[in-house]
């Protein structure tokens, strides 16, 4: 297997993640258009894509990202307001950036045309169609405003690489633009914006020099700033920002950001004030003699203003936090690993687990006590390696769920519906391969829910419901499984119509009696559709059978519960991992079978619990439980003694018994696919190879449980 270490590929992967971040921010901004942090996050994503793209000469991508970024800079400084139209346009821009990323330095007339159209639409949002770049100028001191901290470029290839090469240092910039600044076209806000592009900043603006209206030169600039910026770009980069500024500029390093500098403490208040030239060392000496708080003494004595003290304290706090963050970052040991490598690791561990199981089995068969003892010692170690490797492969379902926000939004826009998406249990973790494989089935279910389930606002009002529908995606653990539910408060399934359609399609006979839940289950039959008007969103219902089959291929199951007029609930049960299964090895006839341990409640002698009535039921601790004789189901001959053992399994708290000839031992293994020829085989879902080379089949417990219950009826 060859794994790509191409920097361009790495950039593409990083950029895709940033585009996801951008989309999530935009979606959240629709709900909270005034959220500064979300605007900052979107801006940073665009900025990093632009910066990193520049390193690879992806000119078209860089130019477009710059245009969109400029609009976001205006949103960030408050000179432009975000509205629904701009959010829509920005989401389109995100899709376009993805296309530009895929296009690289290639050519596509359609994308190029779209590039021109979108660029001009963004440019129209800017005054005089301008882009960000500026200068300014200066004056005096006083009233500290709200010191605001901003993150800089943040994550991304280019920034991370910069940080590898150079250390972050913190600079104090004292910016006193000249009185003429505004008149000569200077804009200090653009300087602040440029500084923020270099790294994290703390901006402290002063307004106390602004005179009363009757004394002011209305075009004069009386504001000034103290700004702290933490960046790896170096002092020259900071100075470059102020190259053409008209006014006083003082730039000093206040924290070197040394790798081995582990002291979190920064200068004391008095030292900072002396360092800034706001107080003389002898005055400080004099004030320190007092028992009162130094800041109060200095203000009372008239050495400094309250605002100067406040600004110095902000600096102290900022540098301390910066050092603390740096220490935490340096002591963390997070690295990125390509998923292919993790796949390979999990596969190898799986093979290792199988091999160990084989050795243990052979040792048992040959009665070799020494090998058996060594195998037992190995088992604990292997379990740890297995759990760790599986853990490395787990990702939160949020990766899956959050991607559906955009889908729901766009579907609502297309269909004229109003749906509020709720996500719950997003921290629940699943094997990344399972998450990838679940994307299409969930996509289909969500589309169906919005297209056919949730009514239009008018229909909902008429039905006495809230105008906006609710769609809830939730995930939670259930033993060795994760359950994912898709729940809506739409119109629900119409059992009568489903039944009529099923009869019409020849799926069931008109006389067949079915429970409501069995009728609802018919929607998973191939080609089933009840939509009065098929749409291009969810088609003609073709695909629910595919959804079910895809989920079953993952070793999972899907159930539907619906109440007409109230809503529909789809419940997907999926194993935590596809890699390794721990099961109980059972014998049926001459064959060996593995039953997933996650389902097993208890194993009993059939003769001890079987009901004498002749019905296929057992008395399980006072509970009547149906059973299925697998020897009969697989048309295999029972062992000579005809007895057998019953394995009681439970799915969704409903128990059934599976009768086998005998139980051998616990067994862990990698499950192999049955291949195309056997994929429709009833009652089995995979295969393993035992230590002695014999194959064993993995029982499809979910399906067998259903067959058991159906037979009882």
């Amino acid at each position: 297997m060859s794994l790509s270490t191409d920097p361009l590929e790495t950039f593409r992967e990083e950029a895709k993640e940033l585009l996801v971040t951008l989309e999530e921010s935009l979606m959240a901004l629709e709900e909270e258009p005034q959220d500064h942090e979300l605007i900052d996050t979107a801006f940073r994503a665009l900025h990093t894509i632009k910066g990193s793209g520049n390193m690879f000469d992806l000119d078209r991508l860089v130019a477009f990202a710059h245009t969109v970024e400029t609009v976001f800079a205006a949103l960030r400084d408050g000179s432009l307001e975000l509205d629904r139209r701009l959010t829509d346009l920005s989401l389109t821009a995100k899709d376009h950036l993805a296309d530009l990323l895929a296009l690289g330095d290639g050519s596509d007339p359609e994308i190029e045309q779209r590039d021109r159209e979108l660029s001009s639409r963004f440019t129209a949002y800017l005054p005089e169609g301008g882009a960000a770049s500026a200068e300014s100028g200066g004056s005096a001191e006083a009233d500290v405003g709200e010191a605001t901290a901003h993150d800089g470029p943040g994550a991304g290839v280019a920034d991370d690489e910069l940080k590898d090469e150079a250390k972050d240092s913190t600079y104090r910039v004292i910016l006193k633009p000249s009185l003429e600044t505004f008149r000569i076209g200077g804009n200090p806000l653009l300087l602040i914006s440029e500084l923020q592009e270099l790294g994290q900043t703390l901006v402290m603006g002063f307004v106390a020099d602004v005179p009363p209206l009757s004394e002011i030169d209305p075009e004069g600039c009386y504001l000034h700033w103290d700004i702290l910026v933490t960046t790896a770009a170096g002092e020259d980069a900071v100075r470059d920002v102020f190259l053409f500024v008209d006014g006083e500029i003082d730039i000093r390093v206040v924290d070197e950001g040394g790798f081995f500098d582990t002291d979190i403490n920064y200068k004391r208040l008095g030292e900072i004030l002396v360092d800034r030239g706001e107080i003389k060392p002898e005055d400080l000496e004099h004030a320190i003699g007092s028992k009162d708080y130094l800041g109060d003494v200095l203000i009372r004595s008239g050495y400094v203003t309250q605002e100067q003290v406040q600004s110095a304290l902000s600096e102290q706090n900022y540098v301390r936090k910066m050092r603390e963050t740096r220490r935490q970052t340096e002591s963390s040991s997070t690295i990125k690993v390509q998923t292919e490598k993790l796949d390979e690791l999990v596969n190898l561990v799986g093979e290792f687990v199988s091999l160990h199981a084989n050795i243990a089995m052979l040792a048992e068969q040959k009665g070799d006590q020494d090998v058996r003892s060594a195998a037992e010692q190995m088992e604990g170690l292997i379990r740890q390696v297995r759990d760790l490797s599986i853990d490395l492969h787990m990702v939160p379902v949020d990766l899956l769920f959050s991607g559906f926000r955009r889908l729901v939004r766009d579907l609502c826009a297309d269909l004229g519906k109003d749906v509020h998406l709720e996500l719950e249990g997003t921290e629940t973790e699943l094997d990344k391969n399972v998450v990838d494989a679940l994307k299409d089935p969930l996509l289909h279910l969500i589309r169906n829910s919005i297209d056919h389930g949730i009514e239009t606002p008018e229909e909902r009002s008429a039905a006495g419901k809230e105008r906006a529908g609710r769609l809830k995606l939730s995930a939670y653990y259930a033993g060795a499984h994760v359950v994912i539910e898709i729940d809506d408060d739409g119109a629900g399934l119409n059992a009568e119509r489903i039944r009529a359609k099923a009869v019409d399609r020849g799926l069931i006979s008109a006389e067949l009696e079915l429970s409501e839940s069995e009728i609802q289950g018919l929607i998973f039959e191939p080609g089933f559709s009840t939509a009065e008007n098929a749409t291009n969103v969810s088609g003609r219902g073709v695909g629910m059978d595919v959804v079910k089959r895809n989920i079953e291929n993952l070793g999972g199951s899907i159930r539907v519960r619906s109440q007409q007029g109230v809503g529909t609930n789809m419940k997907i049960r999926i194993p935590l991992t596809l890699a390794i299964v721990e099961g109980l090895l059972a014998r049926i006839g001459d064959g060996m079978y593995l039953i997933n341990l996650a389902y097993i409640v208890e194993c009993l002698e059939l003769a001890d619990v079987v009901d004498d009535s002749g019905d296929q039921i057992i008395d399980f601790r006072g509970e009547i439980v149906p059973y299925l004789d697998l020897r009969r189901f697989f048309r295999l001959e029972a062992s000579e003694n005809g007895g057998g053992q019953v394995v009681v399994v439970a799915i969704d708290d409903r128990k059934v018994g599976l009768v086998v000839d005998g139980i051998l031992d616990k067994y862990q293994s990698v499950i192999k696919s049955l291949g195309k020829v056997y994929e429709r085989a009833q009652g089995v879902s995979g295969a393993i190879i035992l230590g002695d080379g014999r194959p064993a089949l993995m029982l499809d417990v979910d399906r067998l449980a259903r067959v058991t219950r159906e037979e009882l009826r």
Partner: protein
Amino acid sequence: MLETETTSANGENVVALRGELSLAETKAIRDALLAGMDGARTVRVDLREVTTLELPGLQLLYAARAEALKRGVGLLFDAGDNQARLERMCEFAGLAAISDVAPSDQE
């Protein structure tokens, strides 16, 4: 473009600033605010229909506060839906939020 309008109601002068609070309009903004403060005990500055907000315009609101404090006049800012935008610009620039001034009791 800036449009200004001063009205009196319920014992307070209302100075409405509509349109652009930009460099080009700073003289007009200053003049309107000063005229609104003449003889008033309380002035309400109506910013609800401001379309463009630039730093020179924002600076004049601080100057209006300083003038109100000097005169002992009450000063109220009513930005309506523009409030968040106003706050965002102050926050971005690290400047104190624009706050009202209570009328002086000695007036």
